[in-house]
């Protein structure tokens, strides 16, 4: 596990402060911390048989926030930074799970994911969707980065429009417009990518939560 064990709370809070002070390397240092914690939470959900929650990014990211950020009175800016980093990390984790699920190599390299774990987290069709979504977002970013960030924050960080607007320094209306259009575009991209099978039921069904 890449995450530190000693005092993750203090460390994450400190990194957020460094980030605010303009230390952009602090962002990179945040990622492994978050990666470890988010996967731990996802696995705990698996263990607690709360499989329905394993992909609920809002809950995962928020729980990581509660666990990792020492003083909840931190500034809104720090909060935004945290959720920005967390949504990126969550996206990487899900892509890693999806690749493991599809037995593809090439992970983000932070920590290996077993097929068994990945299979518990998501079904094969879901893994396909995650990978297609990740690819589509990659394609969207160079074209229209703001919209790709809105989607990333919404889908993988679970942020509300208001939070997204303050995180990106845009109006709620703009955030919502970006969200609606980017989501619509992504849906079509994913559908094109995956072909016609989309309307069939998922090939696997898992236990209830």
């Amino acid at each position, binding site marked *: 596990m890449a995450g530190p064990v000693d005092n993750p709370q203090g460390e994450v809070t400190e990194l957020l402060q460094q980030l605010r002070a303009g230390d952009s390397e602090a962002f990179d240092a945040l990622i492994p911390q978050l990666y470890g914690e988010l996967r731990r939470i996802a696995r705990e959900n698996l263990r607690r048989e709360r499989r*329905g929650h394993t*992909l609920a990014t809002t*809950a995962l990211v928020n729980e990581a926030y509660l666990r990792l950020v020492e003083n909840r009175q931190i500034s809104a800016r720090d909060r935004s930074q945290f959720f920005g980093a967390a949504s990126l990390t969550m996206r990487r984790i899900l892509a890693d799970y999806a690749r493991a699920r599809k037995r593809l190599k090439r992970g983000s390299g932070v920590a290996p994911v077993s097929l068994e774990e990945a299979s518990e987290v998501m079904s094969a069709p*879901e893994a396909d969707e995650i990978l297609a979504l990740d690819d589509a977002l990659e394609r969207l970013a160079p074209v229209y980065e703001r919209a790709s960030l809105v989607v990333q924050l919404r*889908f993988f960080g*679970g942020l509300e429009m208001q939070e997204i607007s303050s995180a990106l320094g845009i109006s709620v209306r703009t955030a919502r417009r970006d969200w609606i259009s980017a*989501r619509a575009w992504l*849906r079509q991209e994913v559908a094109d990518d995956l072909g016609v099978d*989309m309307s069939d039921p998922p090939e696997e069904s898992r236990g209830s939560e």
Partner: protein
Amino acid sequence: MDTDRWKHIQSLFLDLLEVEEGQRDEWLRDACAGDRDLERAVLKMSRGHRDDSQLRIEGRLLKAQRAGDGDLAGQRLGAYLVQREIGRGGMGTVYLAERVDAYQQRVAIKVLSPGLRNPELDERFRRERQILAGLTHPHIANILDGGVTTDGRPFLVLPYVDGLPITQYAEDRGLDLRQRLGLFQTVCDAVHHAHGRLIVHRDLKPSNILVSDGGDVKLLDFGIAKLLTAPVSEPDPTASADVREPVRSAGSAGATGATQGLRLLTPEHAAPEQVQGQAVTTATDVWALGVLLYQLLTGAKPFPAADKTREELEEAICRRDPIPPSAAAPAAWAKRLRGDLDAVALRALAKDPDRRYQSAEQLADEVRRHLVSEPVRARSGTPAYRTALFLRRHAWQTAAVGVFIMSLLAFAAQSTLQSKALQRERDAARLDRDTAEQVTQVLVDLFETTNPIHRPGSGAMTVEELLDEHSDRVIAGLDGEGVVQAKMRHILGTVHRAHSRFDRSRELLQGALEQQVELAGWDDRATLEILHDLGSLEVTSGDRDVGLDTLRRALDLRRKALGEDDPSIPVSLEAVANALPPASPERSQLLDEALEKRRHLEPEPGLGTADVLNNLGLARLAEGRLKEALALFEQSGELVEKLLGEDHPFAVVIMANISVTLTNLNRFEEAQELDRDLVERSRAIYGPESAAVAKALNNLGTTLAAGRRWPEAEEALGQSLALHRQLFDLGHVETQNTFRNLAYVIEFQGRFDEARALLEELGPDGGATPRDAALIEIQIEGLRLRSEGARVALPRLQSLAARLEATEPPLDTIVLAIHESLLGLAYLETGQFEDAEATYRGLSTSFEGHYPPPHPLWAKAECGIAAALAGRGLNDDAHRRFEACIEPFAGWGWANPQTVELYRRLAESAATAAR
């Protein structure tokens, strides 16, 4: 695609959404001015917007809401100061606030999500708020106030309820089924109250039903869902489309405002008619109550969203039957859910609103019916159900628990006690016959050489006491007279044995044996007599196996050394037979041989024959062959009365055996008359304050108890106990036996506290032996079963099992059987029929060999199995078993008439169903 192109597409797409549906195509063609690629791209994007089935992962990613945004904290809303956010749900955000004017009331303020606002909603909001303000019920958190925030969001002020969602409360507190159902009934009552005012909740779910620390239930958000959705009377054409959004929380997507409210519905709790956009009625709340009941019973949801898409979830809600609660619940609960509660939950979750319970009240009533074991409407009619209900409804604990235990003990005690009494008689007789002269001489010497014997606080010593206290001196005084000394040791050994001083007895008998073998060798009559008595001692003191070996050795040696016709052979045969398990075939065989030898030795049937007849009677009694036993006892009794007169102790013992047999044969009148007669005879023979009278009174009380003549039984046992306590201390085996019997009889008259006090007087370590201690403990649990019910008693009976297993020396079959039969009853009473069946089967197995069919104990165990099978609905099996066991059981004097009646009706019901 480049950035500008993308921006262009996006802009056209967003504008297109503002255009009225019918004019979009035309508008777009104009806007694109012949750029077909642009037109296609915009259309594609708008298809993506409408069709959320293409990215099903969305639903799972956006599943939950997050708490922790405090943006209204510190603000003032009307008369309230917002303190902090306490939750976030489908409606928006909930804050804790305090009234800042005179009242200082803590409230919860629910601020609706910004996207929910529109003018139409505002108007309806005001109207509905007034209706809801009139909803006052102790378990409904009614709206206190409301308004609009500065940024235009409507808010509602509700009483602050410091509690947990009902399901979480039930989990955290580890509530049992009954407690959960109690909470559920409260919820139903509150919902019914609102329905009476034509207010439908529409979004009942655990997070809207909070339970405070003190267990107080409060329903939140009553009618609020309606504030946010189109009225039932004016179906919103877009509602059904909108409700088909992916599983997702409010405000997560920028859908159009007016119909967004429906998305607030929690899909996992939504009824089919809600999913399908049809009319919402009170039946919709009944569905939600069904979902809640299901969750409370199983910890799971009947239609979990899990990783389902919205369509799959809707499909499940509208078309698929949920797994019955008993199959979804943890194994430990499954059995209690199977049947009634399965049926009730599934009825509430009927797809067709008309097929659900008519009202929340009716649902609550079903739960009540289940709790008091009345038939639930959902299951009326099936034979298996009637049988199970019948079983459950009968207060099983009023069945013959107490008396049954007494009877079991009676079976166990008879053979040992009765033969012990005879043994003492025989010891005395032999004392008279063989060595009277020698012993008399010794005693005369002894009396002459000692000072007058005086013991403080009592009169003169009996000869036995004298011998007991002076054994060593007597033996030492005989030094040099080997044969007499060995004889004296032997006699004193048997005297000590008769007084239950086993260690001392063993020491003396072994000394006697050594001395006698040295003097006369192993072929000597006296040597073998000592060996025989040593064997009897081991049997009496509890080491049956060692004793049996010794007795067999004595028998073999006697056959060889003294010949088959020696009078000691039948004595040996009987002793070996009596040491064998009651129903073993070898026992009867040995006794038959003994009887033959007796008859051969006694041309005129004498006491020896009477003795064997009595022993054979005891063997038949133990096998449950009651009529044969009675005939043998009667023959024996006639002989004894002819030879010794009816006031002889031997005659009294045989009469007692006859009385016990009559009781088992259901002939109480004769039995109790005989017992009363025996009390009188014992008084005449032994004096009014003797152990024999105490014993006779105990027997009379037991017989009266079997005849269910409680007050008379209590009187006899009370007298017996008084006498026992006068003669012995509380720790004496016989005293404790009577004590327990009296406690049963008192318990049986419903005076539980008194019975408990009696048993507690014996104390936790009050048992005379580990066996008695176990019996006291079992009886206390039996009492609990009757007084507090099976649910309370069951766990204690279960944990008692392990303690009984671990008891040293190991407990006999009968004691364990008493416990098992109580456990079986507790399982039956709680409707855990499979466990009941297993328990009774275990009982039946442990009776095997001891109490073969048609022994009443065998029948008792079989009837238990049959009842459990009937409870499981296995009517064929139940019917077959009842056929074989019900008559032997019904004909038994100890069988409780109520239990017999219950079994008969169960048997009938099983027979009907089997056909």
